């Protein structure tokens, strides 16, 4: 049904004869399943890699708790935004994109402030390989699943959809790496935990229109 040259009445007739029962899509069910699945998968990967030895001590630090809380909020809001964006009219809640973006800005300001306080120290290059590898392990399957869910929808904002997908999955990876990697230096976190995925996100963004075409 892709030819538009045919007569409109004929087209309407064909569309009517092609009509099936179309149960309204629920924006919450699929994304809830994804969130639960992604968290369960992350738990498994974290258990496989091994939780950082000083995790108990970190739980006492308000800065660590703040960082994890804001990452969780970004994860939830970005995945919800991603789900709403998979509707042509964004479920008539266009403001939803602003929340994860604002939270991400707060998160960036927080990391810059911490970098200024602690100084930008860099650890050796070995960590880059091992953190990037673990990060990819944590993110790749949830990313494929989320992109697939968005592809099943009918987004009219493909770039925003991809941005929300990547933001949700990146924060999932960030949380996972903060639970497994015991290097707390901001230079390390920014360049080893965030930068490889920022590059991946930019590369994926180039294909957003093609991926989410309908």
């Amino acid at each position, binding site marked *: 049904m892709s030819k538009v040259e045919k007569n*409109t009445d004929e087209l*309407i007739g064909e*569309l009517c004869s092609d*009509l*099936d*029962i*179309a*149960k309204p899509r629920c924006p919450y069910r699929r994304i809830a399943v994804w969130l639960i699945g992604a968290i369960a998968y992350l738990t498994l990967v974290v258990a496989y890699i091994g939780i950082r030895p000083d995790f108990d001590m970190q739980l006492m630090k308000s800065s660590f708790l703040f960082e994890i809380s804001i990452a969780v909020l970004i994860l939830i809001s970005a995945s919800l935004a991603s789900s709403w964006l998979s509707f*042509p009219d*964004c479920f008539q809640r266009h403001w939803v994109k602003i929340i994860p973006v604002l939270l991400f800005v707060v998160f960036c300001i927080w990391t810059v402030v911490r970098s200024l306080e602690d100084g930008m120290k860099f650890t050796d290059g070995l960590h880059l390989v091992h953190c990037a590898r673990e990060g990819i392990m944590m993110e790749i399957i949830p990313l494929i699943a989320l992109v697939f869910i968005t592809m099943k929808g009918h987004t009219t904002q493909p770039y925003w959809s991809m941005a929300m997908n990547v933001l949700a999955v990146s924060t999932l990876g960030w949380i996972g790496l903060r639970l497994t990697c015991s290097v707390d230096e901001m230079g390390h976190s920014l360049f080893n935990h965030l930068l490889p995925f920022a590059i991946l996100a930019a590369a994926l963004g180039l294909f957003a229109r093609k991926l989410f075409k309908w």
Partner: protein
Amino acid sequence: MTQLSDAEQWQEWATKAQAGDKRAYSSLLKALHPFIRNIIYKGLSNSDAAEDISQEVLISVHKSLNTYTPDRPFKPWLMSIINYRKMDYLRKYYAQRQDVTSTIESNPEFMSENVTNSNHSGELRDIERALEQFPKKQQDIFRKIKIEGYTTQEVANQMDMNESAVKVSAHRMMKKLQGMLK
């Protein structure tokens, strides 16, 4: 009985269509088509393109019917699809246009739409050919005065010439052209 507005009526038909009611669906699509076409036509002023896009929108409505939830207004949902398809069309159109070069002669459609009297198009080409037979400087003087609308004083200043020499050159060329085109 209260009269339903267009949007409310569409909402009702869309809800019935989701349940598989083909008659309601047919009424919905028939009612949407002129609305969609008018909206697109306002922005494009090309009836063929407006018709193409409105058919694309109808197909998109069909594909994404399950993304409409009856408790939300119908019109914003439809408008999102219309705008998306329109932008899609314009993107493709401008992308194609960048790769295409054409001349007036090879585009009779453009000629018939944009040249006031297409019977004169052959004469215009004859004039162009005749002009090319003159020296470059004389052509420039003629074009500036007779086609681009500069005054003889302005042309004289631009070409660093005497005003009367410019007038004489343009006049002589006009006479010669008339002779050549008789």
